[in-house]
């Protein structure tokens, strides 16, 4: 039932670089087998299959919380992926969601230039992820003081499958900035207008937005090509992604 969103290659690249020194030791097939067993257990440490506990309420999809923050005063290009974006954890049920959410600060209380991301498990909160590369996002700019409440309503609607657009939703982001906060919801197919319209209308409903609220849809390819007001975030992810690809 759950779609396979993450390609096996993506899974591997998280661990690349970790096993180089082991390779020389295992020359025989048995060694190889042992190594792959070890790899499996290593990656399962990171990504143990998350399932709903007994008597918990399962969600349609598993989701992962991420957090990122731009270090002030340093060019984004010198920052490594690990320094800037952290996986907080993955959950599979309503109760597990609350366990994370209740032990995280509200976005309105974050300091500096930071973001919370909540994406389906297996989708990285980056434009370049397979699930995102043909996608886009609805953006709503909020004056200070509204982010916590709007973020909560947004993610509850996403977790509760209120958008009714099949597999289209990828995740949601709240970006805390100096003058304003921004929430956005990402979907897979930017060209699918029926879907993007339905997401927009659902957003208006679940966020109780006044009718004159400006909502902006941006395709990720446009975001990559044109520096926008989300420039720093764009650069951050773009550079991080490049850094990751350079890992031997």
């Amino acid at each position: 039932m759950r779609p396979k969103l993450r390609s096996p290659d993506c899974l591997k690249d998280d661990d690349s670089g970790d096993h180089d020194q082991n390779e020389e030791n295992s020359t025989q097939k048995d060694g190889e087998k042992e190594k792959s067993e070890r790899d499996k257990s290593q990656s399962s440490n990171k990504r143990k299959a998350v399932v709903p506990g007994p008597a918990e309420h399962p969600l349609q999809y598993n989701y992962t919380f991420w957090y990122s923050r731009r270090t002030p005063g340093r060019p984004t290009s010198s920052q490594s992926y690990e320094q800037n974006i952290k996986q907080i954890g993955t959950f599979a049920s309503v109760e597990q969601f609350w366990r994370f959410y209740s032990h995280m600060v509200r976005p309105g209380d974050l300091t500096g230039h930071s973001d919370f991301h909540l994406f389906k498990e297996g989708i990285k909160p980056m434009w370049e992820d397979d699930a995102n590369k043909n996608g886009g996002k609805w953006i709503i700019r909020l004056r200070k003081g509204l982010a916590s409440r709007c973020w909560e309503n947004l993610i509850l609607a996403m977790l509760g499958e209120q958008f009714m657009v099949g597999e289209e939703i990828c995740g949601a982001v709240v970006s805390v900035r100096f003058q304003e906060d921004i929430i956005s919801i990402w979907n897979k197919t930017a060209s699918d207008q029926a879907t993007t319209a339905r997401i927009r209308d659902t957003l208006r409903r679940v966020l109780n937005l006044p009718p004159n609220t400006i909502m902006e849809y941006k395709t990720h390819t446009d975001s990559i090509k044109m520096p926008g007001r989300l420039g720093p975030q764009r650069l951050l992810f773009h550079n991080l992604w490049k850094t990751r690809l350079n890992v031997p």
Partner: protein
Amino acid sequence: MSAGGSCGQTPSRAIPATRRVVLSDGAQLPPGDYSTTPGGTLFSTTPGGTRIIYDRKFLMECRNSPVAKTPPRDLPTIPGVTSPPGDEPATEMNPNHLPNSHEDKPGSHEESQFEMDI
């Protein structure tokens, strides 16, 4: 929705009791003919397969279940962002950085969000 047995995954349910939803504003109506009703989704399944749908009210109620209050075992420590158990005395957080607590001021969920000037 077909009356036949084509929705094999969807268990049959009694028709829910009538529920009255008061609308003070046309904007609260769901747009178009989407499979939602004012005040929340009436049926928790959709034709063509079961989808697990929860409305906001239900999700908020789950927040108070005991299991939902335990922090996850593998919650990473990120100062100012997460608060794993046993972390409280070590880091001096200013009051603005306190994690969401279930004792949130009762008013905090009621505050209006219609004052946006965007």
